[in-house]
């Protein structure tokens, strides 16, 4: 193999639950500084794939490598600490915390300071500013004192991504970020992603094709637990397989 390895890649991943083989021989690579997409119908195994890549499950076989480091089988905490961050399809926030506190608790500065028992987080204005910046980034300016549970859905979605960003990751995995959003929400989200791709490597799972096609540099298509196709949106449009199935119908 002469070409350099991708920034984040997986080789020959296998995963079974009970006697059901969910993923077979998955090999994927994501390029640094780009928006990478994973696409596929429901039940195809893309969520499982996502969960494998971010450490929720351990693969039965195969390797996952990030920036030259083998992260296969590491716990989610360990993978997160290496700079891999993810958002969740079903919103997964700290509901009783305010939006600001949600961000704050995920900041690496805070996370690594467990022994600093005298540090009054909420009284530290520099820290609060740092957290506030992230809120602004995801469009939640001014919502900082609202409890996460009290935010409207679209803002909860934004906060969901905000928490993933708070960990100052190098690569961010977004799990169906358009879930439940209307067309306005989608537009905002697309703008956000275009902003984010300047500073982060993104991997997005979506089954909203039009959304993904407009944003992603390269998309991997997973169906029946395998990667059946890979390429830029244009290349995929040429792929007869993709065209034949519903995947080819871009709104």
């Amino acid at each position: 193999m002469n070409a350099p390895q991708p920034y984040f890649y997986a080789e020959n991943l296998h995963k079974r639950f009970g006697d059901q083989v969910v993923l077979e021989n998955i090999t994927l690579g994501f390029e640094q500084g780009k928006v990478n997409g994973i696409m596929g119908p429901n039940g195809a195994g893309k969520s499982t794939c996502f969960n494998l890549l971010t450490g929720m499950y351990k693969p039965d076989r195969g390797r996952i490598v990030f920036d030259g480091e083998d992260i296969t089988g590491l716990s989610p905490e360990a993978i997160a600490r290496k700079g891999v961050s993810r958002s969740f399809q079903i919103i997964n926030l700290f509901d009783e915390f305010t939006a600001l506190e949600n961000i704050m608790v995920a900041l690496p500065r805070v996370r690594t300071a467990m022994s600093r028992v005298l540090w009054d987080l909420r009284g530290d204005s520099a820290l609060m500013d740092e957290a506030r910046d992230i809120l602004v980034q995801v469009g939640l300016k001014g919502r900082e004192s609202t409890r996460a549970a009290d935010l409207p859905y679209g803002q909860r979605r934004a906060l969901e991504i905000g928490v993933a960003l708070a960990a100052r990751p190098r690569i961010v995995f977004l799990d169906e970020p358009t879930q439940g959003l209307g067309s306005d929400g989608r537009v905002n989200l697309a703008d956000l992603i275009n902003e984010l791709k300047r500073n982060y490597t993104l991997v997005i799972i979506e089954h909203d094709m039009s959304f993904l096609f407009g944003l992603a540099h390269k998309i991997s298509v997973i169906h029946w637990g395998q990667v059946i196709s890979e390429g830029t949106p244009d290349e995929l449009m040429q792929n007869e397989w993709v065209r034949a199935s519903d995947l080819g119908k871009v709104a």
Partner: protein
Amino acid sequence: MLTSPRGAPLVNVQMLIFFAVLLSYPLWASSAGLYQYLGVEIAIFVIYALGFNLLLGYTGLPSFGHGAFLGVGAYAYGLWQSAFPNVFAGLLIAIVCAGLSAGIVALFLSHRRGIYFALMTIAFGQIFWFLSIKLRWITGGEDGLLNILRPEIDFRFTSINLSSNVSLFYLVAILLIAVILILWRVVHSPFGTALQAIRMNETRARFAGHRVWLIKWSVFTLSGAIAGLAGGLLCITQESAYPDVMSLHASGFVVMMTLIGGGFVSFWGPVVGAIVFILARDVIGAWTETWLLWYGLLFMAVMIVEPEGVVGVWRRIEARLKGKTAGVAPVSAAKREAV
């Protein structure tokens, strides 16, 4: 709010009021119909409950076997005292032994939460209780360790005899103040914030990179150590140590008092709860032997009707009063008092 949203000064108004009331207790106790020994007991249980609430209210881990650590502290102090009568060394030993026990137990349950966690704490609690009865040659069995004399504390310029309930009260009160000041800082620190994050959403905390197992282990151990301090003080006060504090029954006390007070929603919940518990025991216990039954029913009622406990009720009243004077006060803002 379990933590103050605007940051936590070292000492705030509620604390100062509480400290003033606490330190002046011996002066006004009898006019309120209370007595010295009661003050000591209340202060000890407040320490116990504050440490316990780190685990239950902040981290959401229900421990039904915490009496084990109170008991370990009491026995450790008692045994040490028979050999080396020195209060501070004894209390330190109590804290260390209880912390060590909690640390070992925590190795087995830090990867769990919810019902599995609770059942394991019950199992460990029962084991400790069983051992404290069976190992007669160490613990005195069902009869307990007796005749632990209240010692003198020797400072170079003076010595204080703890036989007096007043002196003992001040010893406990000062330790209580220290515990409050320390825990107040801890809950507002990164550690304290992580505890709450784990309670709300352990999965997300993990994916944000928090070492959840280690944090849970630490808070369990810390909580056990504080229980050990309370246990040591209890041993001094009662001049004895008994197995029954380790029973499921007694472990249930600290759960009930913490929650009735409002441990789920306030730093001060356990304080209120411990006071209510001891007063209930004395006041209701004066006219019926079955006070525990009524207390247990009260606990069930609280869980059904108002899980936020006394402090929760207090806040609602406050919110309603504020709402009446200031127009419509948003609920989330009104709930965020520092008390």
